[in-house]
């Protein structure tokens, strides 16, 4: 089994109001088969044995589908591997002797709760503002009664791949949440089921996004580069069109 030794510099912060600082740790003999979070588990076991406070970090599925995990590793959200969540980033991508600086996702809209854990409920409030979709009640409709061109279905599916991890916000030099909001607006506005509330949804979601304290997008493309699900900024362009149409045409 191949192993590596690592130097870690991790952001430690007791709670939202207390100021945080970096602390240094050394880890020896980390298997390259481990995931990044398993490496942090090893660190936490060591800290617990030493009677110290373990590093708090968010995680749930550990298979790259839930969007709970995330931290900035050496300046890149979810670490250096493209198209990967932190839980799916493996230690084989690092070399022995590497120093890893691990910081929480930073944004005015994402207050740090503890260490690497941030409160991303601002993203949930954007989703909530999107409201509902109208569905006809009655008998079960025939499966093929709503034709959707395959290309459109693919685009909607690509947008729906967003797991809401917030890496787009963390990586954006402006702390903007436009890739997330663009994807969420796109996945519904592309499909026939999303049409009745299309305009009000675009207005409400963008208004909430602005009021949550995210920055303004200036087309930096960082979000697209770090997105673990490869969400394209064409979703932002679509959101721009949707919002302009909704604003001007009501």
């Amino acid at each position, binding site marked *: 089994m191949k192993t590596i030794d690592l130097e870690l510099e991790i952001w430690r912060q007791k709670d939202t109001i207390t100021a945080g600082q970096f602390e240094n740790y050394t880890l020896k003999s980390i298997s390259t088969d481990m995931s990044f979070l398993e490496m942090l588990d090893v660190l936490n076991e060591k800290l617990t044995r030493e009677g110290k406070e373990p590093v708090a970090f968010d995680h749930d599925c550990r298979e790259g589908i839930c969007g709970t995990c995330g931290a900035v590793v050496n*300046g890149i959200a979810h670490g250096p591997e493209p198209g990967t969540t932190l839980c799916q980033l493996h230690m084989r991508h690092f070399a022995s002797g590497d120093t890893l*600086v691990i910081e929480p996702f930073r944004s005015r809209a994402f207050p740090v709760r503890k260490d690497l854990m941030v409160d991303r409920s601002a993203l949930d409030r954007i989703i909530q503002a999107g409201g509902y979709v109208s569905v006809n009640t009655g008998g079960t409709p025939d499966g093929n009664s709503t034709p959707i061109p395959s290309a459109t279905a693919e685009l909607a599916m690509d947008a729906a791949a967003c797991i809401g991890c917030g890496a787009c916000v963390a990586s954006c030099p*402006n*702390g903007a949440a436009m890739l997330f909001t663009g994807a969420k607006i796109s996945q519904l506005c592309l499909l026939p089921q999303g049409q009745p509330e299309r305009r009000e949804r675009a207005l409400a979601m963008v208004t909430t996004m602005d009021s949550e304290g995210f920055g303004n997008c*200036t087309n*930096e493309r960082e979000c697209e580069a770090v997105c673990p699900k490869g969400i394209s900024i064409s979703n932002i*362009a679509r959101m721009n069109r949707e919002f302009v149409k909704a604003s001007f045409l009501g």
Partner: protein
Amino acid sequence: MWFVNFLKSSIGKKSIMAGTGLCLFLFLCSHAAGNATLFSSVSLFQAYADQLHSHPLIVSVFSTGLFLVFAVHATTGTLLFFQNRKARPQGYRVKTRAIKTPWASMTMIYSGLFILLFALIHTAAVSFGDHGRIGETIATLFSSFFYSSFYIFSFLVLALHLSHGFWSMLQTMGANHPRYTLLIHRLTYIVPAFFLILFTSIPLLFFFGTGR
């Protein structure tokens, strides 16, 4: 009210940047066309300037409009810069970018403010001079090493600004479609290069004494 809300929103502000950016781009095209007469002769350029100034109404409407567009573009850009800095009160210790060429987008505020400075100096030196002798004014200015270098440097900065600005304008306007991706990608290089070559070759022409 809805219009004010639109303008105040994040997408509204980027639309202002794109809309005024488009106006400035169109102005640059017309300015480039005017300057192109200098490739022929200073007297042709003078004739073009005389013709333009024989329609004072058009000139005043366009110059006031241009001034307003410039002011809105610069003010909104500066406002965005300061608002966005506040969106991340605590920065990262390691500042790495995931994309390979972030220089143009990172420096938009600085390149923009430099272009504003250039525009002020340039209008003070040329536009507020004697229009009847504008050809001569230009020939004199461009034979100065200092002014020519400043002019050329300014257009290098403008090319940098446009290399993000032009693409960014299209993206904001919602023009992002696989069919046009390649074209837009090429234009991102062609547009700044076109203006850079056209505008900087004129002072070079004068400086090396080949301008007439």
